[in-house]
Every structure is written in structure tokens, then in C-alpha cells.
């Protein structure tokens, strides 16, 4: 009977079908078993990163420059439906419009299990008010996070920097794996430079969840490792004194220890308040900062470059002495100007200095003297010494993207401008005008090198980092001696241009400089509306064995001796006082 045969056939079909099922089982459980096991673990285990407390930044006296403070956020649990929320009462409680709340809720990611943040940065008073009425608002919670506070506000903000939410590029960085979502990342200054050190290692919390996203239990916790503290070499009282001395003028100051390159103070004015960035700066405030005519976001010490003016004469003098072109007794008769062909190059002193030697030429900043030795040296030999002392290359402080300045050579001109070098340009360069430009940081570096006898230390903002020597100028002892003596006379000499830096506490050596602002020409009558020249002053003290070297740059400050020298004096005096105080305290404790 055929139906009996069919029953037999069906037995074989059954066997075949079961073979297929078994093969599929083998494929799923044996071949791909590891993959599916992992998927099942991923399903139920959620890993939440626990942010690590960020390291504290101290100044050299142990003063806290930053603080970690709690930060309160009013949030809604994600599984709360909109119907359950009494929008009207909630808007009253939080002091924000119903529309704003609705927008925040609408913006959330529907798959996210994170609470919806309604209002950030609650005050203690607001926290207390919300806590008291929590039972009226199901799903309303107060999240606590740690944020950064900068107790000294705008002080040293370019040095310390600030934190904010990471940018898209920062998140793309391979090192970004360590960044906990929603946590803050260093964006500027020390906070950015030593971000990884300060950040620490986030901890991890393994939570078992179900398909509804309910957290069932905590399986494992790996505690976070706190970020390392950092002690900066800056001296806060000196920093404050320096900023105060600028008296609201724009400019920059870099003070460092000429014996090791440690930064004592770094001033860039106008500055910004880092506290504004931490809780998310509003677009309006950001625009105001960016569009501010004073460019508060520019680090003037490292990111702006100007003609060094007469400060550059120090380099020319070194070059001339080292090359043996002149002896210290070499004299030039300054008649107020020098002419080549139809061009006339003036000294700043119209009626001339008369017969001047090197010392007087530095002290009274005689231009004609340097035109003359500039002519004898030639631009390339000047450039050789300028480069050797660290000009034309970034100083390597790495706090931000540094400018490198410009030290022109004949080759440079041919390459960039396509023209030969002219003698007149050597004249300009010899007095630090024309193509030559340097950053205030480079000015401080060259001053420190002169102060310590020719060693170029790699600058650093960390107090305890090993001292690194970037280069050594093998100068004749006489060259250093002559320069130091001349620079001391700049401050204390009868006709010294830097007399305003003269201190009753400490012997200071310095050099003034004035960077011409292009729109303003000497032969035009003084126009009070035209921007004034920039003022430079570089100095070190005490003269014999300096412990501080600095550069001061005042934007549109006019002559260096007038505006920049008093700032240098105030800064140096404060530092010497602080140093004495520290040493006293040290003696007492020992």
C-alpha cells in the first residue's frame, strides 16, 4: 500500500530534517559559541566609568591654584513619561521655562539610560529647595559631579588654563579612551599640557541590567585612581604683583629663574576667567571673548611676536664682541643720523649722542653706534648669534602653539622675498626693527642666558622636573662682564633709559626696547589717536648672580623705559621679597 511506503519516506525526511537542525545547533553553539556568549554578556553587563578625582595644581609655595568642587545637576530619570511630569510646577521649581524643559526632554536619546539633565550648576540654595520638594516630582533627581574651580580667577589663567567638555578632535584621539563621558578635559595651559597626568585613571563599575535597562545589581567595581598633583614653579605672589603692575594695560611678561629655566610668572593680559568655561560657556560669552578687541584668548608671551627694538642690540653687541670686530673701547661719533646714498637712518636722539663707546651705546641706546657695528658684522653674523641664543625657534614651553619669531638672513630674504639683502635692512635689524621679530618668551630666554653667563636652560613650569640645558653659548668672560655692566648702568646710570626700574632692594640690570608700530612714523608729528609703539623691557637681578630674569612687553606702551621698566621692577622686588621670606621660613624650620 502506497501510504505505508510514504510513511517510510517520512522517516527518512524526519532524519534529514533533524540532521539540518543539529548542524545548525553545532554552528550556533560550537562554531559561533564564543561570539554569542560574548553577546549575551554584553546584553546584561553595562560598564559605567567612574571619573577619577583630578590632580590639584599648586604653586611653588604650595598654594592651591585649582580646586575640585561638587557640582549639582537637576535631572530627570529617563523612564519617566512626559505625562507624569507636572511641567508647570517643575518650571517654577527650577526657574526655567516650560518650553526649555520640554526641549531638553525632547532632545534626549531614547535608547540612553542616562538621566536627562535639566539644569546644571545648581546653587546650594536650589539644591535644598529641590530636595525638600522631591516627593512631589517623581523621577526628579539631583546628580552630583565634581568640577573644577579656579579660586584666583583671571590670575595666571593663560598658564593654568581651563577645562571643558572634550572637543570632537579630542575624542577622536586614541588617548581619549580614558575620558569618561561627560567629564572635563584640559583645554589650555597646564591643564591641557599635563592633562593625562592630572586626569588619573577612571574606575569601572560593572552593572547587571535587564532588557528594560533596570539596574539589577553591581557585579564588580574597579576604583578610580586619582590624578597626580602638580606643583608649578610659579610664585603666586609674584604673579599677582606682576599682573597688578600692568595696571590694566595689555601685554605679556615671562619671568624665569636664570639658573634653571623654571618659570616664576607668566602674564598675558587681558586674560580670561577659566571658571566660565568649566560649566559650559554660553555661546554669547564665547563670542564676546573671541571678538574682544584685546584678544583675551591669545597668550601674548608665546603667541605674539613683535620687533624687539633696542633689546636686540644686546645680541648685536655680543656678536660684535665675540667676532672680535670691535673692542669695548671702540667708539662711534653719533651725529643723530647716518646716511647711505639717499637714505638717512636716524638715531632716536635727533641731535646725536656725540662720541660713544659700547657701554654708553647700550646705556643710552644709541642707534647710530649699532648701525655702524651692524654694517661691520653683516646680517648673517648677527643672525648666527641670535639663533644660538634661541631666537627664531619656539622656546618649547608647550603651553600652547608657540610663535617662533623671525631672524632674517640674506638667504631667507632671497628665498621668501626673492630679492637680495640691502644694507639698510641690516641697519634696521641692528636696532631690532624691520624683519626681526621675537616673542616675549624668547626675550626672557635671552635675558636669562646673559644673566647666567651663557647657558640656555629649557624652560619649564614644573618645580620638580629635571633641569635641562638646551644650549650653551661659549662666550668670552669679558663679553658677559661688559654686557652685565652696561645693563646695570641702563638702570642705575645717570642717563640710563631704564632708570624707572632702579630698586632700593636689589641691583637690577636691564635693557629697554621700543617696537615701532608701522602706522606711526617718527618724522610725523605726534598723533594722540595713532597707536603708540610697543614697550619692551628685559631685566635680571641681582646683577652678580641673578635669581630672576624677565621680559616685559606692553602693547602700545610707548617707550620701554616708561611703561615696561616699572613693571619689571615691581615683579623683581616682589620675587626677591618672597624668596627672602621663604628662605627665612626655611631657616626657622630647620
Amino acid at each position, binding site marked *: 500500500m502506497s501510504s505505508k511506503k510514504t510513511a517510510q519516506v517520512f522517516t527518512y525526511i524526519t532524519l534529514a530534517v533533524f540532521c539540518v537542525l543539529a548542524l545548525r545547533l553545532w554552528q550556533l553553539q560550537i562554531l559561533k*559559541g*564564543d561570539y554569542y556568549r560574548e553577546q549575551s554578556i554584553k546584553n546584561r553587563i553595562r560598564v559605567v566609568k567612574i571619573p577619577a578625582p583630578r590632580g590639584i595644581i599648586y604653586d611653588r609655595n604650595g598654594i592651591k591654584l585649582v580646586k575640585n568642587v561638587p557640582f549639582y545637576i537637576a535631572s530627570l530619570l529617563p523612564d519617566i513619561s512626559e505625562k507624569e511630569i507636572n511641567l508647570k510646577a517643575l518650571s517654577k521649581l527650577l526657574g526655567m521655562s516650560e518650553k526649555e524643559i520640554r526641549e531638553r526632554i525632547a532632545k534626549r536619546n531614547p535608547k540612553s539610560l542616562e538621566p536627562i539633565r535639566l539644569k546644571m550648576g545648581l546653587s546650594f540654595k536650589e539644591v535644598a529647595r529641590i530636595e525638600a520638594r522631591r516627593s512631589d516630582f517623581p523621577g526628579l533627581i539631583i546628580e552630583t559631579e565634581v568640577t573644577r574651580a579656579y579660586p584666583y580667577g583671571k590670575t595666571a589663567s593663560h598658564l593654568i588654563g581651563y577645562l571643558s567638555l572634550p572637543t570632537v578632535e579630542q575624542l577622536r584621539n586614541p588617548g581619549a579612551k580614558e575620558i569618561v563621558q561627560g567629564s572635563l578635559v584640559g583645554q589650555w595651559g597646564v591643564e591641557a599640557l599635563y592633562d593625562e597626568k592630572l586626569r588619573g585613571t577612571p574606575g569601572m563599575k560593572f552593572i547587571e541590567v535587564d532588557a528594560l535597562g533596570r539596574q539589577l545589581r553591581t557585579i564588580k567595581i574597579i576604583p578610580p585612581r586619582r590624578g597626580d598633583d602638580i606643583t608649578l614653579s610659579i610664585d603666586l605672589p609674584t604673579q599677582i604683583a606682576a599682573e597688578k603692575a600692568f595696571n590694566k594695560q595689555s601685554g605679556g611678561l615671562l619671568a624665569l629663574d636664570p639658573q634653571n629655566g623654571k618659570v616664576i610668572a607668566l602674564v598675558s593680559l587681558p586674560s580670561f576667567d577659566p571658571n566660565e568655561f568649566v560649566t559650559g560657556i554660553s555661546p554669547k560669552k564665547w563670542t564676546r571673548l573671541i571678538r574682544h578687541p584685546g584678544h583675551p584668548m591669545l597668550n601674548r608671551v608665546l603667541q605674539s611676536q613683535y620687533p624687539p627694538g633696542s633689546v636686540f642690540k644686546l645680541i648685536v653687541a655680543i656678536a660684535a664682541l665675540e667676532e672680535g670686530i670691535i673692542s669695548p673701547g671702540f667708539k662711534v661719533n653719533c651725529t643723530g643720523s647716518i646716511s647711505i646714498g639717499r637714505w638717512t637712518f636716524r638715531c632716536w636722539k635727533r641731535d646725536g649722542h656725540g662720541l660713544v663707546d659700547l657701554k654708553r651705546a647700550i646705556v643710552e641706546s644709541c642707534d647710530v653706534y649699532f648701525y655702524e657695528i651692524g654694517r661691520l658684522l653683516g646680517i648673517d653674523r648677527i643672525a648666527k648669534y641670535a639663533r644660538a641664543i634661541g631666537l627664531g625657534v619656539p622656546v618649547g614651553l608647550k603651553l600652547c602653539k608657540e610663535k617662533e619669531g623671525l631672524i632674517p638672513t640674506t638667504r631667507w630674504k632671497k628665498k621668501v622675498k626673492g630679492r637680495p639683502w640691502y644694507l639698510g635692512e641690516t641697519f634696521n635689524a641692528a636696532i631690532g626693527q624691520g624683519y626681526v621679530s621675537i616673542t616675549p618668551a624668547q626675550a626672557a630666554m635671552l635675558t636669562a642666558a646673559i644673566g647666567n653667563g651663557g647657558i640656555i636652560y629649557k624652560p619649564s613650569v614644573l618645580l620638580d622636573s629635571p633641569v635641562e640645558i638646551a644650549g650653551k653659548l661659549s662666550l668670552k668672560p669679558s663679553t658677559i662682564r661688559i654686557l652685565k655692566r652696561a645693563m646695570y648702568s641702563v638702570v642705575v646710570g645717570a642717563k640710563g633709559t631704564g632708570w624707572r626700574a632702579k630698586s632700593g632692594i636689589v641691583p637690577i640690570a636691564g635693557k629697554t626696547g621700543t617696537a615701532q608700530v608701522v602706522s606711526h612714523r617718527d618724522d610725523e608729528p605726534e598723533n594722540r589717536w595713532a597707536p603708540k609703539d610697543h614697550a619692551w623691557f628685559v631685566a635680571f637681578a641681582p646683577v652678580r648672580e641673578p635669581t630672576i630674569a624677565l621680559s616685559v612687553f606692553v602693547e602700545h606702551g610707548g617707550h620701554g623705559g616708561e611703561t615696561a621698566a616699572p613693571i619689571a621692577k615691581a615683579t623683581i622686588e616682589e620675587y626677591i621679597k618672597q624668596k627672602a621670606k621663604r628662605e627665612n621660613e626655611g631657616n626657622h624650620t630647620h
Partner: protein
Amino acid sequence: MKVTIPIRKLREIDRILVVVPVIITIIGILTIYSGTRPALEQYHPPFYIRQLIWLLISLVAMAMMFVFDYRWLQRLAYPLYAVGLFLLLLTIFAGYTGMGAQRWLRIGPLSFQPSEVFRIILIIATAKYLQSKRAPIDGITLAMSLVLFGIIPFSLLYKQPDLGTALMLFLITSIMVLTYGVRKRILVTLIALFLLLSPVVGQLLWKGLKPYQKNRLIAFIKPEVDPYGIGYQIEQSKITIGSGKLLGKGYLKGTQGPLRFLPEKHTDFVFSVFSEEWGFIGSLVILGLYLLLIVRGFETAYIAKDPFSTLVSTGISSMLLLYVTINIGMTMGLMPVVGVPLPFFSYGGTALLSNFMAVGLLINIRMRRYKLFY
């Protein structure tokens, strides 16, 4: 009806057909217990207790199915079929809805799915109709049987809508008809006609599907389309089975069910929960048990003494084969999700009852296969 159980006959009760379904059901109850474990709250849904009670009821029902001579059923076949169709019709109008489909009838505190019991009635009625005709059957008989026992119940079930059962029963009827024998010419014509019309019929069926049914089919063809949407069930089921690996995570150690990643964990996807905890080895044991049961069923068809009992046992065995293949295939992503329970294993009282009754019939047929006893 004369009910006699001679001692000799009792000895003829097939042990495999009794023991294997009971073992599978007990494993099923244990798996239901594990799969419905609560994750957080203390309340454990009592599905496993209900299923245990249904097992006891089903054992009685199974016994009742083999105490009488199955030939009595031939007389009752058509009236039973009429009642069955009426119940299906009633379900459409008076049934209550569960999960987007009206499948349940409520009688007092009890609710049951008429379509589950209807399966057996359909097999009996089809067998009765076919055995009254000469094999191989002619065109008119073929058309009659396909309309009466194929298209009519299909339409009623499709309307509920219970597409899974509708297709399943249509297939069972077709298998029984083919098993009985169809004239070759007619068979060829039929196949040609089917191939010609299938696009049109497919289109009509597609249009009649509910959105969730369409999604299931899309999800079957392209599960990676949206792992959190329509492909979710299939993907989660594959994760559940695959994560069991060779030896499984251990009993009560499965996570996919209790943490609710796997939907329908105690009904359609109960096999996945078992596989997660018992691994490849455990799953093979289950496959072996089903294989034993189904092959025993077809063997019963082979040794049955008359065309009616051959047809009935072929119908029951192929029904079991279809349900097991489609359900397990579905959990492993080999078949679309059509909502077919795993016989004896999935939670569901009416289904358990009807499956035990079906096996009871097989036992009945086996017991009375010798003409000698009459």
C-alpha cells in the same frame, strides 16, 4: 460505545509513546520555571505550576484516547468536525484577543484555544473522508478534500488571525492527501497550477497580513536590518542558543530569559532557554527525544492495520514533525517567526492537552494493530 480494556491490551501500550512525551513535558516545565525566574521582584509567575496541572489533566486525556477502539472515531468524525468548525467560527466572533490575535475562547474560568483541539479533529475527519474513496484519488475527490479540510479551516484560522496554525493545518491536510495517493496526471497539473498561481496567492496573503506578521517575515529574511526592531527576537534567540556553547551555562544560570532579552521565553522560544542552559549536548538530547517520538509515529502509520489508522497516524506524526521543525528552526533563525509552539515543551495548556490526545490516538492505533484480536 463499548469500553473494554483487556489486560493483554494494556501490555500493548507503547512505552516509547508514553514515556518520551512525559519526559519532554517535564523538561519543558523545568525550563519554563527557569525562563520565567524573576530578575528583581520576588514574584515568580506560576506558569510552571499551571503547566504541571495541565500535564496531569493531559495524561488522563491521553489514557481516555486509547481505552476505546479507535474505529468508533470514524462514526463521530463528521459531527466532531462540524463542532470544531463552529468553535473556530465562534472564536472569531466571541473570542478574546491576546497579542493582536483572537485565539482564545473562555468558558467560565477556563480559557482555551479551539484551534489546538481542532488539529486532531481535522486529522480524523480528513482520514475518514479519504479512506471512503479509492486510492489514488481523482480530481474531484482531491478538490473536495482540499476545500473541505484545507481551505475552509485555513480561512477561519487566517481570520483569527493565526497564520502559523492555518498554514500548519493546510500542510497536514495536503500531506495526508498525498500520502493516500493522488493520480499522477492530477498531481502534475496541481503542481503546475500551484507554481503558476503562487505569486498571485502570495501577494494576496501578504496584503492580508497584519503589520507584525509582515515584520516577522522581513526580519527572517534580513535579521540585521534593525537588531533592536523587528530582527530583535531572532537575534536574541540566536544569542541565547549560541551562548550555551557545548555544555550550557547550567540549570537556572541562563540570563537571556530572566533578564527579558528573549521575548516569549516560556512559549515560542522555550527551546532557546533550554539550549542556553544545557548547551549543544542537552539540545541534541532533546532533538533525539523528538526524533524517537516522530519516527515511532511514522512506524505506527506503517504497521497500522487499516487505511484510516494509517492516515491518522501519518497526520499526527507529520503534524509533530512540522511543529518541531518549524519551532526549533525559528529559534535558530532558519525559519520565520510564525508563532508555532514546540509540542510538549512550550507553555500552553490546550496545546499540551491536544498533543497528548494525539499521542493517545497513536497508542490506540498501535494497541489494536493486530487483526487477530477482533
